[in-house]
């Protein structure tokens, strides 16, 4: 067998990485088109606070990070829907609050109990069998959620106001999306780490936006880019002895640069983005 698949810990890392490569862009497609690209990053900071608090209280980092991010995501979502005009500012405050809490908890904690490097930058050797199970269940839930609510989610993504007018359960869907985003962030920290989680949600989608012609194909292509970058990233990092999280993200970035040129040559340049911008302007007009 190939060395890279030989050990069980690498097999677990591969499976977890592949699942993440599917669900991160899947969720990310909605986030990016709703101009919430940075929400994963913010939740990553909040997850860090959760990990630090968990280490203080003696809880497993994945569980405490999941709890913290879900609470954080629900709060951010609530604020976003009430105070849409200053959503960005509120989001920033959540980031800093999360980081502040993390630093304070870490300073209270004199005994350590968690490896800061592996939390922030990911560590393949820490993916345990139970982590894998949780990741698989989350993956299944996410795919089911998107499959079942694809139409309403699409409507919501492009025009929240008319979706609400049309009688869709907008708040409920927003909450579910926020919770899934939070869980995805908390669980993918094992692979790429909290600081780079958000890249897996954003960059494959950014690539797909250059090459895809419809919303559905944006989702599918972003998953394809996600898978390619995780496979390449893991292989390169393994044989070149580089940090896996960083290598995956840099591979994604390289794909993005490639996709700009590739996308330009084809027709239908950045169609989804144009559409998106048009909606944004409409939204702004509505807000005003």
């Amino acid at each position, binding site marked *: 067998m190939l*060395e*890279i698949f030989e050990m069980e810990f690498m097999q677990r890392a591969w499976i977890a990485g592949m699942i993440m490569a599917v669900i991160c862009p899947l969720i990310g497609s909605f986030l990016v088109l709703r101009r919430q690209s940075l929400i994963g990053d913010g939740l990553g900071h909040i997850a860090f606070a959760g990990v630090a608090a968990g280490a203080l209280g003696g809880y497993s980092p994945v569980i405490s990070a999941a709890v913290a991010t879900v609470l954080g995501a629900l709060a951010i979502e609530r604020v976003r829907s009430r105070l849409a005009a200053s959503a960005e500012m509120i989001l920033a405050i959540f980031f800093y609050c999360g980081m502040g809490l993390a630093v304070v908890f870490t300073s209270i904690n004199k005994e350590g109990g968690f490896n800061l490097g592996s939390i922030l930058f990911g560590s393949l050797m820490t993916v345990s069998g139970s982590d894998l199970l949780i990741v698989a269940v989350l993956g299944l839930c996410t795919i089911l959620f998107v499959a079942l609510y694809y139409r309403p989610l699409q409507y919501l993504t492009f025009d929240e106001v008319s979706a609400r007018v049309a009688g869709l359960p907008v708040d409920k869907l927003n909450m579910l999306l926020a919770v899934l985003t939070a869980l995805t962030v908390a669980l993918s920290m094992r692979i790429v780490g909290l600081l780079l989680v958000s890249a897996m949600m954003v960059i494959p989608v950014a690539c797909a936006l250059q090459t895809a012609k419809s919303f559905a194909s944006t989702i599918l292509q972003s998953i394809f880019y996600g898978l390619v970058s995780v496979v390449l990233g893991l292989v*390169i990092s393994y*044989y070149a002895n580089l940090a896996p999280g960083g290598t995956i993200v840099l591979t994604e970035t390289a794909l993005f640069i490639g996709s700009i040129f590739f996308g330009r040559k084809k027709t239908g340049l950045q169609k989804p983005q144009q559409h998106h911008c048009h909606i944004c302007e409409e939204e702004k007009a509505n807000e005003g």
Partner: protein
Amino acid sequence: MKKIFWLLVLLALLVGGCTDNNTEQDKLQVTASFYPMAEFARAIGGERAQVTMLVPDGAEPHDWEPSPRDLTKIGRSQLFVYNGLVEPWAEQALQAVAERKVLAVQAGRGLYENGGKQDPHVWISPKKAMIEVERITDAFCEADAANAAYYQENSRKYLAQLQELDRQMQEIAAAAQKRVFITSHAAFGHLAADYGLRQLAVSGLSPQAEPTPADLQRLAGIVKREQVDYIFFETLSDPRIAKVLAKETGVQTAVLDPLEGLSEEGRKENLDYIKIMQRNIDNLKLALAVQ
């Protein structure tokens, strides 16, 4: 489609180009954490074991972290030798390859206690090094029972060399006119404690611990009071502080190697644990004014 094709070709090249085939497969495969552990394992395993050292020479074993590839090496081996405490990553690494049933031997277990502190540098004392070698030998015999007699014979030869070092240290303990030696980092506590000497370190147990100006002041006082003639610095970490202190107080410097890894020079001159310990002991004799 073309793009996907080229990506796949690239991937195949990467994977294909990097797989290595194991030629030494019939030997007992051993991984050892860092230099003294690898040295002991090589001495015991002789020709019948393939010992892979994980922490490269020149790297600080305290800070090193295994890459996935290193973990694969551990998972492939039948025996993993480590000292304990120096390798905070060892436990997690063993957990990552738990399915592989690698026999792990923590050679220093239970030996760390020194003056109320947990001091990992046990290999530096010949007395404790002998215990470590015996434990590693037992693990070799357990992992490869067919060659047990061979390993025990090698082990006996190596232990004889350690006994010689031990004898010389006891000589120092008996004849030294001075009891105190100053080192740059506190790696020689066990050596001091086992032979009735006192180590004073410029910095703490970790080589990165920086001494404060107050520490230096205090040490300068001790240098004067105890009439220390030599200050030791070591090969891997920054000798600047020891040198500054030596200059301030007008004493000489000498090398005391904590044997956490071979230096470039050590590799070139084909030095090993026994030879470097012999140098350490000679330098100690000088510093402690052994007649």
